């Protein structure tokens, strides 16, 4: 449990750092940092219940997209403002690194396995974001269509 709290906290501060690099200012800075921590909380919760490597990443991707779309709607800011920093902790850096390490040691099957693992994780996150963002686009265009028809 303690390690989970530390992971969420470090995700928060890492996202905070990235938000500063992207010049996010004011209250948005805090909201964007929270997005990274929220994504990792969703990952950890799902990881505890699901017996799968891909599902937690999918859920985490979908949840940060949901978070940023709601924040974008609430604060009239572009969703990218929150999604871009919040996405960073989910990037499968560890999987890529292990694949690269295997490659440098001449372990080609380990390298292939690592790359497939990376693609699996990356694909799950991206699918989660695409699903949620598309859903919000549908809602927005749906509301617009209904309004103009009246």
């Amino acid at each position, binding site marked *: 449990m303690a390690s989970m709290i530390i992971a969420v906290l470090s*995700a928060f501060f890492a996202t905070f750092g990235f938000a500063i690099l*992207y*010049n996010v200012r004011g209250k*948005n800075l805090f909201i964007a940092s929270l997005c990274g921590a929220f994504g990792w909380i969703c990952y950890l919760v799902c990881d505890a219940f699901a017996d799968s490597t891909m599902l937690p990443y999918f859920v985490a991707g979908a949840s940060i997209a949901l978070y940023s779309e709601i924040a974008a709607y609430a604060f009239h800011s572009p969703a*990218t403002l929150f999604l*871009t920093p919040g*996405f960073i902790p989910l990037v499968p850096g560890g999987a890529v*690194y292990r694949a690269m390490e295997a490659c440098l040691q001449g372990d080609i099957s380990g390298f292939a396995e690592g790359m497939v693992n990376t693609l699996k994780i990356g694909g799950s996150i991206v699918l989660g*974001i695409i699903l949620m963002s598309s859903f919000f686009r549908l809602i927005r265009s749906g509301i617009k269509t209904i309004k103009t028809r009246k």
Partner: protein
Amino acid sequence: MQSSLSQRQVLDIVSAIGYRILRFGGEANRAEDTVTRIGRAYGMNEVHVFAIATSILITVEKDGESMTQTRRISKVSTDLDKLDKINSLSRKICSTETDFDTIMNHIREIDQSPKYPSSLGIWAYALIGGSFSVFFGGGVCEFMVGFIVGALIRFVKKGAEFLQSPPFVTNAAGAAATVSLIKICTFFFPSLNISATTIGVLMILVPGVLLTNCIRDFVATDYTAGTAKIMETFLVAAAIALGVGVSVFWR
């Protein structure tokens, strides 16, 4: 809506805004959408706009006359705060009609709005390096090393940018410096968790804006813009991998 602005002025405004959206790290679809909305709001019969990450092409048509402007975005300088401000400005001028000089003044104001000082960037790099080292399973020792190496990577990157090196070289140099500096740190901290620290610091080089915009462009069915960004991210990843490859020499 009947507008007092001439076709030429509307074209100038939408080009200025579309150009800035792309430059400050907005998606291609956001630029296209905003330009179309403003053009329509200011009485243009047709607005045709095509944007990719590096260029935007706008044609506005009114009473059978069409005018075109293109802008080339040679360097993206990500600044989400200015993107936010441009976004709210375009919302505002869409809902209430504003005259040309006021809009141009607003745009100029946004251009000059503050950025975090460069010294804060060093702390941000250090914080990212340290936090991610902990995130990937490190402890206090890994945090400190990640913190210091992260700050040093900032100087490597700034130096490479000062020499106007191509992005591929910048990223490869950053990754190579990370691996080498952490190797040096193991002399002082023999029990250092090398992989956690290395992954943590390398996360600094992740092209976050590119990745997010690429996904969002695909969602908005802007496949041309999205594919170009995917290629760029793969190239960045290859550069980082190449940089990590220098660790072969330290074995």
